[in-house]
């Protein structure tokens, strides 16, 4: 491309030309300029709230007043050990010797429920993704849309749908009663952690299909033929080639489901009942009717850090970096 003489192009001042030339020579500057709208949105919507959360977590609430003196009191509040007079709390038979064990227990319970939901999601999504990647030959887009069709409705509606399915007079109970298999509605279906896990698993499964599908679709078909050729039956081949090569997709899907579900509070509110509440419910009430915003901030941060830690440990344990290098 010919470089225009200064002044040759109408409307270009000397400094504008210089700026233009500077931009052309500095690729990083062009990059940041192009990304600037995104960066601004990220700063306003993501970085600023988290900074606010961190700052608030060091404040103290005195009924209606907020004391802005920095203190670690909120964090201490969450992990203060039980005194000699306090009754030890138990969860799943494990003692939790904390003064207010409810937060720690709730956090662990949320993580466990999320983990269970994630495992369920992967078990549901993998066969669907597999079918889509290997069995469907034509119109894959239509299949993909058909599978995700129920997920075009609102999240809330889908949770309500499960309430109708699992409820006292719900589809499952009335169906079983009509068939004469049970005399009374099953009570264990709704308002407990299992109902939350079922609902979460269904709500998130559509999001998990796509990453797994993409990683399966990417597998070179000659690798599968090579495995057969070298003596593997279909099942052996699946565990030796297909599964390891689709691991990045499985990992991505797991994180996609696990991270947001730990903090979910809509599903436990609607189908969880008293035993099915999660950490999100606790944070919501601290920010809301309990008016304990600093404590709520501290709890939110503890939750976020715990999730981050778990995710990092998980990625390290499965050797994700090594995997990315060799497969991607």
């Amino acid at each position, binding site marked *: 491309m010919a470089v225009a003489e200064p002044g040759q192009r109408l409307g270009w001042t000397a400094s504008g030309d210089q700026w233009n030339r500077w931009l052309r020579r500095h690729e990083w500057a062009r990059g940041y300029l192009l990304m600037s709208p995104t960066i601004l949105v990220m700063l306003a919507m993501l970085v600023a709230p988290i900074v606010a959360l961190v700052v608030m977590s060091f404040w103290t609430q005195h009924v209606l007043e907020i004391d802005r003196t920095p203190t670690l009191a909120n964090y201490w509040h969450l992990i203060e050990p039980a005194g000699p007079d306090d009754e030890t709390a138990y969860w799943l038979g494990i003692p939790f010797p904390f003064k207010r064990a409810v937060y720690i227990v709730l956090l662990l319970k949320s993580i466990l429920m999320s983990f269970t939901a994630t495992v369920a999601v992967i078990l549901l999504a993998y066969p669907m993704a597999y079918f889509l990647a290997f069995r469907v030959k034509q119109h894959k887009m239509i299949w993909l849309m058909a599978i995700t069709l129920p997920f075009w409705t609102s999240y809330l509606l889908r949770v309500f749908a499960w309430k109708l399915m699992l409820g006292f007079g719900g589809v499952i109970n009335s169906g079983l009663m009509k068939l004469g298999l049970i005399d009374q509605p099953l009570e264990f279906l709704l308002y407990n952690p299992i109902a939350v896990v079922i609902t979460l698993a269904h709500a998130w499964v559509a999001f998990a299909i796509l990453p797994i599908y993409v990683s399966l679709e990417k597998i070179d078909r000659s*690798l599968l*033929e*090579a495995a057969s050729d070298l003596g593997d039956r279909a099942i052996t081949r699946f565990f*030796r*080639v297909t599964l390891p090569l689709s691991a990045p997709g499985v990992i991505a899907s797991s994180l996609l489901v696990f991270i947001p579900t730990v903090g979910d509070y809509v599903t436990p509110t609607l189908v969880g009942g008293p035993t099915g509440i999660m950490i999100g419910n606790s944070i919501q009430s601290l920010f809301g009717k309990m008016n304990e915003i600093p404590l709520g901030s501290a709890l939110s941060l503890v939750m976020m850090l715990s999730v981050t830690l778990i995710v990092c440990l998980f990625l390290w344990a499965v050797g994700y970096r090594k*995997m990315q290098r060799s497969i991607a």
Partner: protein
Amino acid sequence: MTQGDNIISIQSVSKHFGPVKAVDDTSFNIKRGEFFSLLGPSGCGKTTLLRILAGFELPTSGEVTIDGQPMSTVPPHARPTNMVFQSYAIFPHLNVRENIAYGLRKRRLGKAETARIVEQALELIKMPGYGERRSDQLSGGQRQRVALARALVCQPKVLLLDEPLGALDKKLREEMQIELRQIQRTVGITFVFVTHDQEEALTLSDRIAVMSRGKVLQIDHSTRLYEAPNCREVAEFIGTMNILPGTIGEVSHGRANVAAGTHGAFEARTDGSAPRPGTPVLIAIRPEKLQMSWERPGLSVNSLAGKVGAVAYFGDRSHFYVDVEGCEKPLAVALQNGERRLDGSDLVGKPVWLSWEPDSAVLLPA
């Protein structure tokens, strides 16, 4: 030939993909221990035939037997064949050692025995010390060797190679050709080699099957394929061939007199059974068997007049394309560049005479 000499027997095998006949009623045998090539242009069905041998495709009709066993109900993992894929298909999540040992699992060898075999295989492909590398740390040639070793350690009765050298650069390809041939002699396994590169097939193979549009045109060793092709397609696919149409005249003592329109009559040797007078034939002459001269040669050889149209320079030799009246394509003449000449194009446009010995031409069915 007894059954024991043939490791593979292909009996009227067809493979149809919808209306396309990828392999069309093909039958032939492959001998134990030979280096057999399937040669043909892309889309001629050679890869499909190889995949039928491997078990990845089932023939629409016909039967394949390997070492006397019918294969139609035997899945790929149970066949006594192994394949070297065109893309090499090296498992990206495993290192070289694990890749080579992949097929050993079904043999349930001990750890030490497996390690020994892998080491041996690495020696064979001249890559000792590469066991811990991953496939993305290997060059194309190295991947190709690993794929070869991985297949060979399974001790197949037949090794199938699907254009394994296609992705390598020319120099590496030539090196690998020599190596491949050496390895084949060392291990003594039957190799079935698919290629579209005729030079590669000619150098490597004991026998070659030339395929076109799903059919096998000719199966022969390199020399005969080049010197005695059985039809125009084979003649033109392997090397360059000049074609002159004519009609058989008098036939005597293994010689035929062929009338070729305005060019008069030519003498040609008849291989095998003598054709009946009056049959239309093609006189086929290789470029290096044509002589070019300024003067009209003597009457003991066949000759015709033409004009040099173009020159293609290949370094060691040049091809002169001589326009001859009545011929649709110019005739190619290959001349060794025995003398150092810095300009060959000064011949363009000059009238010349072409001549050849009666024994140099092949008569092909028209």
